[in-house]
């Protein structure tokens, strides 16, 4: 575009000689008309003079940029004004020419502009296609059979548009299968692998193939077919971490199969974790690897928690227990993930209730589950710091002024277990479990150690204890500070409850 008819004629001829198809305009208004009539996408570059009667070349560039970001523009100016050139680039120009313009300069700048437009359009197309793949990938990665949707709560936050962790929950002929997977890598390739696996899994389950066999089959495919191909192309091996669960409602049995992923946690009415499978290598590492399923009766299980390692990594980053992160993410859903620091990996966690009528908030939900070696007694301050952060993270507003009562009791119980139950030995371990019941505002703590407990009735002795000093002082404190204390296994297991009064909302 140029208002100088001689100049315009030179530019047109020059570009035609260079092989371009050229459309000209003598002012901004007629240029707009041409671009609207023939559509911006039919042009590959715009060459415009800066100084025009009425609106300037910059105003045309601004208009074009809003219509089509991919179209490259070149500004012609008579003056060597740095400010003007700066404004041209800010306005979206990919190059500029100073008058008088030579044929060779013109051809060089326009060739660059056309190439840039073509590249921009290729990127835009690829981006649009990837976005569509991403939407499909997200859909495929969160497959929940509508029949059992009411059993399932999910928190899913993939790190990238494509190739994230995936979830597949189906009911086929009375068998519910819940599979949580994590393919190595966060890219389109990972998306292909998870889709392939899920398709294969679906067909196998429809053919009543046991879940562990499905995993073993895919392990063989990865190791024997895909692995050699990746080696040949000098690419990284594809591996798949899986945490899977199968529920046979008729037989009342739950079966877990795990490969390289955190195992599913089965939770009873007290919030205790009653069964936890052992994990194997991820699929794709070892062709000989068998997946040994672990079955437990499902009657006492209120819900199962399944999550990928991104949840554990993020909890480690926050220096809190992973279960308090699980509890919080499932409870508040998206809001917390948006306000806290960015996770390092995909986050996927699932809570599955075998009985859809169960109201999860009516039951205890685990928020801390840790196992400590007896030799960790000297690290009690660090352990306590993690409990403190975890409890504040998950239950801050629920705790009222009971946080420090709770911490004192947990400290006393765990120290007692590590020092007396485990004799401070590294090979012996104690377990701490903390669960919260949102409906009754009760925190329940359980500490188990491998000791023999006491020969005498410890609880009775505590009740009769005349002095507050000396032996069992810690237990006496727990009894005094907590709202209920129970001792099991002759004192080797201690369970105590705290009723908390939540803070009034501000």
């Amino acid at each position, binding site marked *: 575009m140029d208002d100088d008819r001689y100049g315009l004629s030179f530019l047109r001829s020059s570009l035609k000689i260079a092989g371009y198809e050229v459309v000209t305009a003598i002012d901004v208004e007629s240029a707009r008309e041409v671009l609207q009539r023939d559509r911006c996408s039919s042009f590959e570059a715009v060459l415009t003079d800066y100084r025009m009667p009425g609106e300037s070349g910059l105003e045309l560039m601004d208009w074009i940029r809003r219509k089509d970001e991919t179209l490259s523009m070149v500004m012609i100016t008579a003056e060597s004004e740095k400010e003007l050139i700066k404004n041209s680039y800010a306005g979206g120009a990919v190059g500029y020419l100073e008058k008088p313009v030579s044929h060779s300069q013109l051809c060089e700048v326009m060739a660059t502009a056309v190439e840039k437009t073509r590249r921009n359009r290729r990127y835009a197309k690829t981006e649009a296609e990837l976005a569509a793949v991403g939407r499909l990938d997200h859909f495929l990665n969160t497959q929940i059979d509508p029949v059992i949707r009411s059993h399932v709560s999910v928190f899913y936050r993939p790190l990238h548009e494509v190739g994230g962790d995936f979830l597949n929950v189906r009911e086929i002929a009375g068998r519910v299968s819940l599979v949580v997977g994590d393919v190595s890598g966060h890219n389109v390739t990972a998306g292909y692998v998870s889709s392939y696996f899920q398709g294969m899994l679906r067909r196998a389950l429809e053919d009543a193939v046991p879940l562990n066999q499905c995993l073993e089959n895919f392990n063989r495919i990865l190791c024997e077919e895909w692995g050699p191909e990746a080696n040949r192309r000098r690419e990284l091996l594809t591996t798949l971490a899986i945490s899977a669960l199968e529920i046979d409602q008729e037989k009342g049995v739950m079966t877990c199969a795990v490969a390289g992923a955190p195992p599913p946690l089965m939770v009873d009415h007290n919030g205790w974790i009653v069964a936890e499978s052992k994990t194997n290598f991820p699929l794709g590492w070892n062709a000989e690897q068998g997946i040994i399923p672990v079955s437990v009766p499902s009657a006492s299980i209120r819900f199962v928690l399944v999550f990928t390692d991104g949840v554990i990594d993020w909890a480690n980053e926050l220096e809190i227990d992973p279960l308090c992160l699980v509890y919080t993410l499932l409870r508040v859903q998206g809001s917390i993930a948006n306000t806290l620091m960015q996770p390092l990996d995909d986050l996927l966690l699932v809570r599955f209730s075998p009985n859809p009528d169960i109201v999860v908030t009516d039951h205890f939900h685990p928020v801390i589950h840790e196992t400590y070696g007896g030799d960790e007694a000297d690290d009690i*301050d660090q352990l306590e710091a993690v409990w403190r952060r975890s409890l504040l993270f998950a239950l801050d507003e629920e705790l009222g002024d009971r*946080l*420090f009562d709770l*911490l004192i009791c947990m*400290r006393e119980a765990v120290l007692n277990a590590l020092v007396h139950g485990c004799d401070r030995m590294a090979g012996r371990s104690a377990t701490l479990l903390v669960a919260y019941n949102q409906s009754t505002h009760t925190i329940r703590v359980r500490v188990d150690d491998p000791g023999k407990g006491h020969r005498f009735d410890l609880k009775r002795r505590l009740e009769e204890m005349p002095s*507050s000093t000396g032996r069992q*002082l810690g237990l006496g*404190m727990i009894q*005094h500070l907590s709202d209920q204390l129970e001792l099991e296994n002759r004192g080797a297991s201690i369970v105590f409850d705290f009723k908390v009064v939540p803070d009034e909302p501000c």
Partner: protein
Amino acid sequence: MLTIELQADKRRLRLIVESDLKSTNVDEVRAETERYFEETSRDAYKTVYLDLRNSKLVDSMALNWIFMLIRDLKSHQKSMVIQISSPAVRRVFEFANIEGLAEVKYRKRRQV
């Protein structure tokens, strides 16, 4: 961990604990206190103030030391005042009946 101040004009000895008092630091606090008692004449003070206002948490080992301290001071005809600000520490003291053995001054501070 522990600051010891002698207020000679008031004949007070102040033991100011800077943090929680528990199994992992009570030995150090005890040793420092005993060293001071050995090095300083007990005639310089009549009352010992144990300032636990910075402690949100006192555990059973710490409680045992507080008992020992009270007993030791009583045997030297010294009185003791314990200053606390944490509801959790107050509940531990109630359980241990510390108020029957020493004067406990409780002023609640916001727990952070």
